[in-house]
């Protein structure tokens, strides 16, 4: 179990039109709660269950990475700011944290084995970035003023699965 969250990091969600802004502490239970708030926002903007599933998995992986890596050295975690913007074609996200910089190349790396069964032992982790890359578009990262800023979008596809979903 993580140390008790620092309440200073949490603020009530702020919604204005198509935007939802959240500030949370990087612990697993606040991450769960934020995912629910984002899904409620997406539902208000007519996201169907497939969209909601896509948003939930991509955002969960992004937030877990911050909790487990960016704030790895901080037992009480740290603040995460999320902005979700609903547009007619996509849900756009900006996710900021004050943790250690995202290592170079992590956005491009591929951790899934290319063949099954894999030659070596089965991986038990490292699927997170693969899922993020497969289910989002316009994935980009900047480091500004000591903060990591990851932005990405989940495109709205009527009556279809995500483009890289293989179905």
């Amino acid at each position, binding site marked *: 179990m993580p140390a008790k969250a620092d309440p200073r990091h949490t603020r009530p969600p702020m919604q204005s039109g198509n935007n939802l802004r959240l500030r949370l502490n990087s612990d*697993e239970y606040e991450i*769960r709660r934020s995912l629910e708030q984002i899904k409620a926002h997406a539902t208000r903007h007519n996201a169907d269950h497939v969209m909601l*599933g896509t948003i939930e*998995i991509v955002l969960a*992986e992004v937030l*877990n990475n911050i909790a487990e890596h960016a704030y790895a050295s901080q037992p009480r975690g740290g603040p995460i700011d999320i902005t979700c913007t609903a547009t007619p074609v996509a849900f756009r996200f900006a996710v900021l944290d004050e943790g250690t910089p995202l290592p170079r190349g992590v956005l491009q790396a591929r951790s899934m084995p290319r063949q099954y069964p894999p030659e070596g032992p089965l991986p*038990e982790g490292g*699927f997170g970035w693969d899922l993020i890359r497969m289910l989002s578009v316009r994935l980009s990262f900047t480091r500004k003023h000591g903060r990591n800023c990851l932005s990405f979008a989940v495109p709205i596809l009527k009556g279809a*699965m995500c483009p890289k979903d293989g*179905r």
Partner: protein
Amino acid sequence: MEIHSHDTGNVRLLSVKGGRIDAAVAIAFKDRMRALTEGAPATVILDLSDVSFIDSSGLGSIVAAMKQMGTQRKLHLAGLTPNVDRVFRLTRMDKVFTIHETTDEGLQYNAG
């Protein structure tokens, strides 16, 4: 999160109750699976029909559960809901596990 265990013939059926296998419960899940698969029959079927969401940590914990069972016993999966099924397919873990549409189908497959 609870996991219910039920032996039927040469199969142990483990049913996950609790909606999510995510980073918050992944370690507890793996430990619970270790306890529940020790001394199990040759086949264990993990019923995921009550699980609506899995993330990469949860997926890793299922892979870990399979590995800690060794080579003598097999872990099958059953009843994947759409979002869970999608994560298995995207990560190609659907190629690693035997996956049954329902637990009944899994039990029939392993009968006799």
